[in-house]
């Protein structure tokens, strides 16, 4: 990832196949180069809070974080909690993109301040459609504060 290029979408996803399909869907609406794929919650926290491997990255917040729930090391709920707790990062839109349609996961996410909750459809066409809609809305149409 080119340091100079601004990351617009942070994709936090442990499944390589889901990540590839998500990127393919986003590519269809022209969002290709601005996507950064991270494999677990810890990497996501490191990136967002500019620590560990991302200690020296440029100070810039993504326009959207696509967050899976079940991940190794640090799970999506934990990442969401950290992001929404911090003054610095709580403005970043976070959309859960997960297999879980469990009511308790949905409730928990909204309690922690998630901006949207999306259940990954099993069917590919549907999956592509939903992910591209979300990407289009949050990363292109949606307006967020610029001062960060």
């Amino acid at each position, binding site marked *: 990832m080119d340091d100079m290029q601004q990351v617009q979408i942070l994709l936090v996803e442990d*499944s390589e*196949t*889901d990540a590839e*399909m998500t990127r*393919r869907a986003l590519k269809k609406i022209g969002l290709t180069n601005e996507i950064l794929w991270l494999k677990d919650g810890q990497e996501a926290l490191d990136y967002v809070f500019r620590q560990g491997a991302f200690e020296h990255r440029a100070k810039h917040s993504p326009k959207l974080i696509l967050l899976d*729930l*079940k991940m190794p090391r640090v799970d999506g709920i934990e990442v969401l909690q950290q992001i929404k707790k911090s003054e610095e990062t709580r403005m970043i839109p976070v959309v859960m993109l*997960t*297999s*879980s*349609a*469990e009511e308790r996961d949905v409730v928990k996410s909204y309690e922690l301040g998630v901006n949207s909750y999306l259940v*990954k*459809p*099993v*069917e*590919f*066409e549907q*999956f592509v459609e939903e992910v591209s809609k979300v990407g289009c809305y949050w990363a292109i149409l949606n307006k967020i504060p610029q001062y960060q």
Partner: protein
Amino acid sequence: MNPVIKQLLTALGMMAAMTLLAGIAYLSYTRTEHFVTSSRWVDHTYTVLIQLDKVTADIKEAESSERGYLLTNDLHFLRLYEQATEKLPSDMKKLQMLTADNPLQQHQVTAFNASVQDKMDSIHAIINMKRDNQRLATDPVFLDMLDKGKQLMQEIRVQAASILNTEQTLLRQRLKAMEDEATSTRQWILIGNLIAACMLLLSFWLLIKEIRSRARAQRHAEATASQLEITNRELESFSYSVSHDLRAPLRAIDGYSRMFEEDYSDKLDAEGLRLLSVVRSNSRRMGQLIDDLLQFARSGRKPIEAEPINMQTLINEVWQEVVADQMAHNTELELQSLLTVHADHALIRQVLINLLSNAVKYSKTKPHPRVTIRSSHHRDMVVYEIEDNGVGFDMRYYNKLFGVFQRLHSADEFPGTGVGLAIVQRIIVRHGGQVWGKSTLGEGSIFGFSLPWKEPHHG
């Protein structure tokens, strides 16, 4: 031991013990009465003896006064004699009355009385003779009279001794009887109490056994309930991981075959594309199976929140959804008197979705598909029936009808996963109701369910 016999034994033991105790109480009461009576008899004997002594004393007093007068000629002795004669009749009368209870004594006392009277007459005659004639002590007639008086006195003594003896014998007999009775009463009370105590102990033992066995049964039930709770929790976490872990690879299969199709369809012939579409349709079917299974698991987990449900409204609402979903707008719906029921709205809605979509699905192939819904009141249950004129099912396989993933038609003929009726059954049974189905193959089927008329108490 047979529980009925055990209960009978307990009751019998208690009853026998109580009867025995009542008997002992009665025995103690009557024996105490006897004892009091016996005591009175003892007193009576002593009274008789005292009275006998009095009479004897009177007669002796009279005789000694007579002697004193004969020796001294002092009139003072005559006064003493007169006092004795005055007392004698009443004392004698008392003695007679006291001995009236015993014939032998009465007889003896009568004889005694006669002797006493004779003696008194003799004393009287001697005193008169002495006073009137002033006869000398040497007079043979006078001496003879004195001698006779002495003999009479002797006789009186013997008779008094006999009365005393008889009375003492009576006393001994009465004391002996009293003693015997007291001993037997004590024995009876002791033995009776011992037996009653044994019976009570037996009943007590049986009761303790019963209580213990009930406590054991309760502990067992509690253990089973908590085991069930654990199983339910395991099932919940199982379905949770199913929803996460099983879906991800499926999505990859579907997604990658689709991506493959998108990127390489120009390099594939028709057969290659067909094979690929089979992969995709099967992955979709698997996704549907997982979704249905999850719904089945959830239908057993969601707590029941009972509220009044307007079935007319709910059925109309569900019908629109089902007909639109299956593109079966030519299916006719007939509603007959739908009763309101108290149940969980969301769950009953699911039941209706499953039953109505089955009715529509299996009658769609008929020229004039028609679904009739009616309800009725049976004792404390409300019964709903959904009738269609569809293809029906073979009653020989009825036992498979409500099983999970059980189907009586092939997926090519009628799509589905075989979970719908299992969900229906689960929801209705949790409400405390029942489900059933009957059908004539080729002519249609009727599915019915019952719900308690009143609000169910548990989830």
